[in-house]
Structure formats: structure tokens, C-alpha cells
């Protein structure tokens, strides 16, 4: 009902050159946060930085490869060197590979786990080390409804996202007493470049997704704004270990 201010806070968002990550940066930046665009694709990262600056957001691109812990640590250190603080860290980088499990290669499995589970842990650890040593902070991990309910053809993705949810709970218990809150967001099927690619690849049709969702429609990027702002701001100062679902009711429906 009242919009919180994030003025003076510094947020790093992985995988924020496009899609969900860029929209998270945009939402936090609009509330006054300085946004560090941590992105592997340099062209996308620089374009995102320029776009956000054009909107009046204080933004800075830093290259990152979340599968490499040294790269993640470097991005965190750079953030601290340049801005003197780190208040919000969002582990968003992801990849959605659809394939029948019997055909999944070891390389594809390893890539999914490396980006979404190991990468999330490296991000939490890098952010946590800084936040624990300073004034605390808030970490947001982007999970998925597939971390809560299974979907055929998404073994690695679902396993990684389920791991992200439990990782979030473990860190919430470990770090809560030291003022570091760790939460997650589990989006449902949101219209992004990633989901459009999945739809185009034939993994599912829009109609199938809509029919499966109690809301009978796909989610819109802006519908994640409230969740990320709530968890990033002091409005959620008594919330840790939670996975907020923004899924149009998907996980609630266990029926046909």
C-alpha cells in the first residue's frame, strides 16, 4: 500500500542483461537503488546498463560467469570497491533446457546445475561474506514452480530449482541471527524471452500452460515487481527462508 524507498542501497543482479533479471534491476532502480548488472553476455550487459541509465537509474555493468566462483567473488569485490556497500543480491542467472531425461547429456545436466544451483550458492556465499561482515543485507534467489512440482522434460532444471529452495532455507537458518535474510521467488510461467523460446521449441504451447494455471493466463513481468520489492526492502524485515510464489495459483492446484 505504500511504496518503500531503496535510495542509497546497492543491488547486484546476476543474469540481468535481459528478461527477468533486467526487469528486477528496473524495479529496484526505480525505487532508488544503484543496480549492478552482473551478466555473462557483455553486449547484453552493456545494453542493459545504457538502457537503465537512460531511465535515470544508477547502473553499472560487471562481467560475471556464475559457474566460476572466482568470477562471482570478483563481481562482489568490484561492487564493494566501487560503491562501498552491498545491500541486495539477486541470484537470477538461469537456463531452461527441455529434453526427455533419457536423452539428457552429462554436459547439459552439468551446465544446468552449474548455472542455477552452484551459481546460486557461489552468489549467496560471495554476498553473504560481505553482508555478514558489515550491516547485513538481503539475498533473493530466483527459484521456480518447477522446484516445487515436477514437469516432464525438465529434470536438471527442476532438480536445480528444488535445490535452490532448500539452499535458501539452510542459509536463512544459518545467517538469520546475523542480519542477513535469504529468500526466494518461484515464478510461474511468465512471458519472457526464455519462456517464449521454450514455447517455440515445442516443449509446451501457450494454451497448455494457460489451461494448467488456475489464473488461466500466463504471468507478466511486471507482476513480479511486488515480490522482488517486498523481499528487497525493509517491508520484509521479519521474512527469511520463504519462497514467494508468483504463479497464478499453479502450485496450489494438484488436481487433474
Amino acid at each position, binding site marked *: *500500500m505504500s511504496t518503500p524507498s531503496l535510495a542509497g542501497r546497492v543491488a547486484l543482479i546476476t543474469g540481468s542483461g535481459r528478461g527477468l533479471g533486467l526487469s528486477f534491476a528496473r524495479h529496484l532502480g526505480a525505487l532508488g537503488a544503484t543496480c549492478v548488472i552482473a551478466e555473462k553476455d557483455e553486449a547484453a550487459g552493456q545494453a542493459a546498463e545504457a538502457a537503465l541509465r537512460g531511465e535515470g537509474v544508477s547502473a553499472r555493468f560487471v562481467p560475471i560467469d556464475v559457474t566460476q566462483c572466482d568470477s562471482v567473488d570478483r563481481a562482489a569485490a568490484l561492487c564493494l570497491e566501487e560503491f562501498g556497500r552491498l545491500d541486495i543480491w539477486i541470484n537470477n542467472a538461469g537456463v531452461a533446457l527441455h529434453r526427455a531425461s533419457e536423452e539428457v547429456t552429462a554436459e547439459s545436466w552439468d551446465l544446468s546445475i552449474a548455472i542455477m544451483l552452484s551459481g546460486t550458492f557461489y552468489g549467496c556465499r560471495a554476498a553473504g561474506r560481505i553482508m555478514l561482515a558489515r550491516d547485513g543485507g538481503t539475498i533473493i534467489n530466483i527459484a521456480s514452480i518447477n522446484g516445487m512440482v515436477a514437469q516432464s522434460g525438465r529434470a536438471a532444471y527442476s532438480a536445480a530449482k528444488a535445490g535452490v529452495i532448500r539452499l535458501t532455507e539452510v542459509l536463512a537458518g544459518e545467517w538469520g541471527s546475523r542480519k542477513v535474510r535469504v529468500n526466494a521467488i518461484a515464478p510461474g510461467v511468465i512471458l519472457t524471452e526464455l519462456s517464449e523460446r521454450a514455447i517455440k521449441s515445442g516443449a509446451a504451447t501457450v494454451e497448455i500452460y494457460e489451461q494448467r494455471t488456475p*489464473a488461466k493466463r500466463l504471468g507478466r513481468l511486471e507482476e513480479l515487481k511486488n*515480490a522482488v520489492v517486498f523481499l528487497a526492502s525493509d517491508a520484509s524485515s*521479519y521474512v527469511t527462508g520463504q519462497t514467494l510464489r508468483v504463479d497464478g495459483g499453479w502450485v496450489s492446484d494438484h488436481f487433474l
Partner: protein
Amino acid sequence: MPEKTAILFRAGSETGAVLADALAAAGYALALVDPDPAAASVLAARLVGARTLSLAAPPAGSNVEGLVAEIARGLGEPSLLVTCPPDPLVVKSTDLAEASLQESMNEILVRPFAWCRAAGGRMLAQGEGCIVNVLRLSGLGGWPGWLGDSAAMAAMINLTHTLAAEWTAGGVRTSALVGGITPANAAQIERGAALAGQQAVIDRIPLGRLVAPEDLVAGFNYLVDPESSYVSGEVLRIDGGWDAWGRLHAGGVRK
């Protein structure tokens, strides 16, 4: 902004009163419903400037469609229903009478359901609305000595999921707000578990403190905000990390 109407079931409870203040401040007209009509009237008198209607909640098993129609006539069609729980019954399971278990089910599950059905039906006819069931952490796992509370709260969680599955397409979002340990709950836990003080309860909470009213209000605002338009069936815990923590280390997470 046109005035909206909210129904608060068990408005006279501690949580109900906190949420009534928040809704009045946000400009809602409020139907204050409570099994104890005096409690609803006292609350209404305190909400100076808000348009209110105080109503006595009928017993479990009563049809409340007529009361919701009365609220719609008096205050406008309800777009928000909030149900709050009663004080818990804390008694060892070996001493729990079937009648007491039934009472927990009636108070925590059956009566809120009647309001969900009546208000939700009207919201579906309007094509929009929001329901928030306020619950306790006892519904998320086993709580020794809290059997009736725990079982009925768990049932309310699946009631919430089911209504979300049924009604979201009709524009009615249903979620649960699971509050953390209040000072009153801490005292109940302390007595029920024969603890020497509340420190063991606080040590069990990763964020190291009991829940405050403003914590609950912030979570509540998140759920009812129209911009949370793709949120339904959520079970939002405002619990300082209570539920996430696996409780392996004896003596509390903070030790």
C-alpha cells in the same frame, strides 16, 4: 480512489485489530465480525473516521450468506475477506477430548469456510476479490500439545490452496498469511512445554525476535495489493525463519 469494503472475521482478535487499523488507514469500509459482538463494537469505536459495521458472528454451521448480503447493502460489495484464528487450545493429545478437537475444527476451519463461501461467491459474481486467511505456524508441522490447532490450521492451508485452484480464474485470489510467534503465543508455548521462560522460543527463531504487528501488516499489504495480481494460493510466512530452520542444533539456532 473509490472506497472498498473488507470483511474481517474475528476482527476483535489481536491480529484482527491490527489488520483493521491497517485497512482503515488504507481507506477501506470495514465489516467487523466477531463471535463476541462487544469486541467488534469496541474496535469500531476505536476506528474513528472509518465507515464500519459491527456484526455478531453466528455459530459454526450457520449460513452467513444473509449477513454478507447485509454488509454489501450497508457498506458496498466486499472485495476483501480476512479471516483470523481464535486463541489456541494447548493440551496434551492424551488429554484432548473429541469435543475439544471438534471445537478447534469448528472455530479454525468451519466458521472461516462459511465466510469464504459467502463472500467468495459474491466476489466471483463481481469478477474480482481477495481472501486472506490468517493462520499460525502450528499448521506447517507437528506441534506437541497443539493437536487441534495444528490439524485445523493445516486444513486451512489446503482450503486456501483449493480455493485458489477453483477461484483464481474467476478473479478471486486466495492466500494465507502465517504469522510468526507473538508474545501471547510464546507464553502459550512456554506454559504448554513447561519452559523456564521464553528465551528458548526466541532462540528457535533465526531472526532472534518475536513477530511485531508491523511485520504482519507488511506481509498482509503484499498479499492484498492489486499489483500482486499473479499471486494466489500463497502461504506467506512472516515467521523470522521459524519454518525454514530444521532445528538440528539443540538449544536454538542462535547458539
